[in-house]
């Protein structure tokens, strides 16, 4: 699956998709594959303030727990309630229905510091290569 070009990417494998001043955050296809079957996603409350690189929650797969980090700063305006019952959406549709939170960006310039799809693909290739 190709990495969507209209997203920006963090080294910790979250993506942010920006429309206006709202960023939708989730984890990448590569990240969900590395994690394996996701069974539980812990997300912040609507209204919480996050700084870029803050822990926004955690994700449990059958084999391990991983922390999630926010690629950008802002206020959480929506969390994906569907993940409570269907955490597997993160595996089946990480770019779409498996999104995690929506955030109102407090500093849109942060987005420019994140990787482009091309840069992210290169980054993953290096990380996966032995």
């Amino acid at each position, binding site marked *: 699956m190709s990495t969507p070009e209209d997203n920006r990417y963090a080294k910790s494998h979250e993506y942010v998709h920006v429309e206006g001043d709202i960023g939708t955050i989730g984890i990448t296809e590569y990240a969900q594959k*590395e994690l*394996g*079957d996701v*069974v*539980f996603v*812990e997300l912040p409350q609507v209204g919480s303030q996050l700084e870029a690189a803050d822990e926004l929650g*955690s994700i*449990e*797969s*059958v*084999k*391990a*727990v991983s922390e999630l980090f926010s690629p950008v700063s802002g206020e959480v305006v929506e969390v994906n309630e569907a993940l409570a019952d269907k955490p597997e959406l993160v595996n089946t549709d990480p770019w779409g229905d498996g999104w995690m939170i929506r955030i109102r960006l407090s500093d849109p310039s942060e987005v420019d510091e994140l990787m482009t799809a091309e840069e992210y693909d290169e980054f993953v290739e290096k990380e996966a290569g*032995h």
Partner: protein
Amino acid sequence: MSETTGPLKKTPLNQVEHELGGKMVDFGGWELPVQYSGILEEHDAVRNRVGLFDVSHMGEITVKGPQALELLQKTTCNDVSKLDNGRAQYNGLLYPNGGFVDDILIYQNAPNDYFIVVNASNTDKDYEWFAQQAQGLDAEVKNVSADYAQLAIQGPEAERVLQQTTDADLSSIKYYRFGNGTVDGVPAIISRTGYTGEDGFEVYVSPEHAPRIFRKFVELGAKPCGLGARDTLRLEAKMALYGNDIDDTTTPLQADLAWIVKLEKGDFAGRDVLQKEKAAGPPRKLVGFEMVDRGIGRHGYPIVDGSNEIGVVTSGTHSPTLKKAIGLAYLPLDKSAHGSEFTILIRGKETRARVVPTPFYKRAK
């Protein structure tokens, strides 16, 4: 994701595993697949159909000679004299302090002729321990791990698949028994044992034949499974994992394995300690738990009572069969009753869990 700290050891099935899309990881120095298609799918295949595991990393040790039984009796806590030819026994190899050198499976070929299967990472340690304890006894100890590949074919359809490849009558091999036969035309030890809580077999063959036999089982419908599913399956069945649930600091009584402790069999390493623990009660006990709050208590997470650390989680996962978070933990004896609640610190957060009866999963007979 694995760190390179030197060349990883490879089993005879390494190439097949790569070809079948195994996601390879460093498992105690061995390159092995953690999963192929996904842990949940593989777990489900074993519970409902048939799955196939490469467990060739496990060690094999033979003990033979006029005093072979004597050697095993003095080094282990279960009663090896109860074995007959063609039977297998789960046992604890113990230090004098009652802690586990390893948990092992002993097969009796003939009186004073034993084949022992040990945990991969303990193979050298176990061999040296047996060899040292054999001094002055007429018993020969050999590490024959390199002579065997081990395939575990597990699940309700395991017998049907394996039977198509063997001349042995599998219906006559009952649980915890084994036989010698051929599999796909080559000599094999066929044992009705496993580490999944499901019916199934462990098959020992010469390494050069293992890739062909592995592929054959896959062709016949067995789903290749990795270490991830092996762990969720064994945990649901509450089978101990050395290095997680048991080690050289835990006794079999603490580990809730009283059924392998036979104090009346005569003297053995650790017997004094176990006798005292049996009389007074062990200081702690391995219990099964379910999470009350959301989250998963995993290996190494502390159990707290206020500011005191009173125990530790030794294994924890999401149970694919029960669809909830389960685990094993050491708790003080007076807090280990079924139904008691306790607090696990999950990355700093107090999270409630409850002691429950085990095994978490038991197959219908």
